[in-house]
């Protein structure tokens, strides 16, 4: 197990393809972050009835809404509580991901 982790780390260092900056959110991390929304808002943001569909929405609108929830400007039942759990960078990445999905 330990060896597996070490070799993984070595792969990570070698993999030029993954060479994003340490703080930046890579596309696969964005996909995973967005998947945390999918439990309520549907796989790929394509929602079933009763929840807002996020797929294909404008990125700016999604960011603005999440920021409004986060700052308490937009009243909500629970989105204001969840929005506070995500950083501004994470919100940008999630919004970009959903904006790129088919409606």
């Amino acid at each position, binding site marked *: 197990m330990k060896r597996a982790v070490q070799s993984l780390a070595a792969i*990570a260092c070698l*993999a030029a393809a993954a060479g994003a900056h340490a703080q930046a959110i890579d596309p*696969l991390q964005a996909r*995973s972050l967005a998947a945390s929304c999918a439990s*309520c808002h549907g*796989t790929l943001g394509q929602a079933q009835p*009763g929840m807002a569909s996020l797929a294909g929405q404008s990125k700016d609108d999604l960011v603005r809404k999440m920021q409004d929830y986060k700052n308490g400007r937009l009243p909500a*039942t629970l989105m204001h*509580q969840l929005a506070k*759990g995500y950083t501004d960078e994470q919100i940008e990445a999630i919004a970009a991901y959903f904006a790129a999905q088919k409606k």
Partner: protein
Amino acid sequence: MKRRQFIQAASAAGVLGLAGCASTSDKGPHVVVVGGGYGGATAAKYLRMWSDYGIRVTLVEPNASFVSCPISNLVIGGSKTIADVTSSYENLERRHGVRIVRDFVSAIDPAKRTVTLAGGAQLAYDRLVLSPGVDFMMETLPGLNRPGAQDQVLHAWKAGPQTVALRRQLEAMPDGGVYAITIPLAPYRCPPGPYERACQVASYFKKSKPRSKVLILDENADVTSKGALFKKVWAERYAGIVEYRGKHKLMDVDVAGSTLKFEFNDDIKAQVLNVVPAMRAGDIAVRTGLATVNKRWCDVDFLTFESKAAAHIHVLGDATQSAPGMPKSGHMANQHGKTCAAAIVATLSGRAVNAMPVYNNTCYSFVSDSEVVHVASVHRYDAAQKTMVTVPGSGGLSTAPNELEGFYAMGWARNIWADTLA
């Protein structure tokens, strides 16, 4: 063996080709998923999606269909049927090419990387995803081990036949009777679940059997989740119906006498007994030696959900030793499934796993047939502590029960069922 060597070599080189339509292919790494609940079914689907259908996935699940624990308390309350909380597994097969084997797993050999099914067949795996849920520590309650006892005194803590049977017991109970539910010491599956169930039974009694009582006998000192909200509902809406008593440690059940026996408190006789026993990780995880925390829960690496006791085996959901502030819930298991799927896909294609997973929990409780209270939280990985922690300032509760969240709760259910199964 050759295939495994190939995969390891390919992984090390980072060139494992996962692309292509491999839904019926017998090539590519093989992941066996044990247990088709919120954790396992989600992992199976996302392993297929996120590997571009390059990883072969076999899901072993004994039940013919998925019966959701969340919302199932409404079946006990009488406002939903078991069909309303039941979904098919067929989309996992048809849309995502998951091979579904309807069987129990009788043994796992972590060294040989094989799974033996009760039917006798063996499956070899490159990675095993174990999502066995919980099993009950029935040995702690001798009276429930007598023949037939568990058919009379129900837990109804795994949605299915017991859910329906408990509803029938409540319907058969004469007005003026007492329904008593016992709650084990935390941690257990679904912290607010017993209190929601008490509300559902009280709601039914208020409408149909107004002289009947709901007695909550909790081993915990106080209500473990949404406490202030539930207590207000009991005091105002269900005054004279619900009574809550903490610090009631159940020691045994006299099934013939329909009586509960406690460590320090007087015996309690009731017409309908609903005993939620102490729980641990599902039996298969315990028998495989994975339940190393108090011999009850499985310790995992929260970046990958790989067991700390056995390589190449990933444990999800209620069976895991929860991170601080992380409830044992279906929503959480769904999020575990995706985190684990992403980590397995990354590892099998020679990429580093995501070092900063973030995910959330949303839990709705129905206090009547239409009004709901929620608790929500956001969790992120903390590299220094090597566990998930709640993000400071995030999360919270409803201010009061309301119908708008009743609408959202059903929207949540439809969406998480689809995200897990379709």
